[in-house]
């Protein structure tokens, strides 16, 4: 009988579904393809067919000082956001897994909230905090914003890892005379290596792309998405396509790395859907 079901479910028996799936993939990839194609177009951003293919826009891009300054800023922000998000997200996951305290349910919801909340609300509420406390807007305020919002990612990833962790190892370590600090670094962290590295990669990528929160916390120095945003407002050139193509390639590398990490650690996990589900509090 199983055979029969399988025979029913072949590609040739579902032409409409196949057609629909092809159309959705075309829809998802059309803008990306257009973006990359026109980064080589000598005639500018629009216009069909593309004419005078050239690497000129990439040459202009590499000579463009402000863009590279903003790339450096973004790299710093992303690195610092990873440190903050992991620094507080890992203990938060441990706390949710291993302790009971007053207000724990509220704490869990608060930590996860920035994942599902539109960025404008997180950004504006932090803007008001910095305003009231007299903090001048700078890259530091963006770092605080990204770090805080992305604790959610670190917590969900590490919490999922903790669920699969065998506590016997930690118990044995404690019984054999190691203190909590030693046990944490020698047993807990090595066992959580993959979720932690995965979370770091994800946080870094998300921070590099983030714009809705940064939009409100920006000081004088731009991050890369805000630099691009500023130029879009002034008018568009294929230089933006060129830098977008490069960002795309880097995101692609990060995704592939992340995906392989996840598959290696848990071969049958629903990669990706976890993020969406955890945002709504399914795993925790």
């Amino acid at each position, binding site marked *: 009988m199983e055979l029969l079901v399988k025979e029913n479910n072949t590609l040739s028996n579902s032409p409409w579904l196949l057609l629909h799936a092809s159309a959705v993939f075309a829809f998802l990839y059309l803008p990306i393809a257009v973006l990359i194609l026109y980064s080589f177009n000598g005639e500018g951003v629009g216009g069909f067919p593309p004419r005078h293919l050239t690497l000129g826009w990439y040459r202009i891009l590499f000579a463009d000082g402000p863009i590279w300054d903003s790339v450096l800023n973004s790299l710093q922000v992303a690195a610092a956001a990873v440190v903050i998000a992991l620094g507080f997200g890992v203990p938060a996951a441990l706390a949710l897994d291993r302790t009971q305290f007053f207000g724990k349910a509220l704490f869990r919801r608060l930590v996860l909230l920035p994942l599902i909340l539109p960025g404008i609300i997180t950004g504006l509420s932090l803007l008001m905090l910095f305003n009231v406390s007299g903090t001048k807007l700078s890259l530091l305020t963006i770092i605080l914003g990204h770090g805080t919002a992305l604790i959610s990612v670190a917590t969900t990833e590490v919490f999922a890892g903790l669920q699969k962790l065998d506590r016997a190892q930690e118990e044995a370590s404690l019984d054999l005379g190691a203190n*909590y600090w030693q046990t944490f670094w020698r047993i807990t962290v090595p066992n959580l290596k993959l979720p932690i590295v995965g979370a770091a990669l994800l946080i870094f990528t998300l921070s590099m792309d983030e714009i809705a929160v940064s939009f409100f916390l920006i000081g004088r120095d731009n991050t890369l998405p805000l630099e691009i945003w500023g130029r879009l407002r002034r008018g568009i050139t294929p230089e933006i396509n060129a830098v977008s193509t490069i960002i795309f390639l880097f995101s692609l590398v990060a995704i592939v790395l992340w995906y392989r990490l996840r598959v290696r650690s848990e071969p049958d996990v629903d990669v990706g859907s976890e993020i969406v589900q955890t945002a709504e509090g399914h795993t925790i």
Partner: protein
Amino acid sequence: MFSRAYKTAVTLPPLVWVTAFLLMPYLLMFCYSFWSVSASQTIVHSWNLDNYRQLLQVDVYWQTLLRSMWIAARVTIFSLLLGYPLAYFLSFYAGKRKDLLYQFVIIPLWVSYLVRAYAWKTILGSEGVLNTLLQYAHLTRHPLEFLLYSPFAVVLTLTHIYTPFAFLPIYAALEHIPRNLVEASHDLGATPRQTFWKVIFPLSIPGVVAGATFAFVLSLGDFLAPLLLGGPSGIMISNIVVSLFGAAYNWPLGAAISLCMLLLVLGLLFCSERLEKKWSFS
């Protein structure tokens, strides 16, 4: 097995941080929404309900909120119409290619939001790729102006961005359906159509609710796509908030609108959680 000191060490730092940088800012937003701005452009810390009264009385605010919800609803419907059959196809028909195709759905999710919105702008503009293509093929003589700077452009772009979000939980729900249920339905003589509507679809409802919530909430609060592609008729509620915090300088009124959005989102999350629980079978 964990000592009191251990528990304090892992609980206290995140608790303090989250209180300082998440809870406090939200509470501050709440406070701001009851304050006002004086004629000399300073914030007056006197408590009153004027901002909320204004929200109800001035048409443009609640009309824009309704329009934003209508845009978000359309994005949600289109994302589900695109995402559900795709998830169904991958889960039940794609065979060995399932994992590869799954990755292809994920990849656009990680391409910068801004970059994708910008790409649609270059496609839809009056000098853009689509219009010049149509003229090149002699299908139109003049550029179609409704494509860009319209609610259409916003809905199209946001649908493109949130379709993978809608797809993911639906796919996860479909993958979790025990295959022997489907086989049992076939064995007992149900047609494929009956099996889908009586077995598969009801079991996938929690995923549909999760995907719909995500698409609706995130597109409701969007302000970048409307700024980039919406034009005057595509303005959304967040754009009003942005201008109140910028040139219009009325933070308290902006805070009141943001708080309404926050409450709306929390209410939706609450409802969707209840719905998912009601329909989950495990």
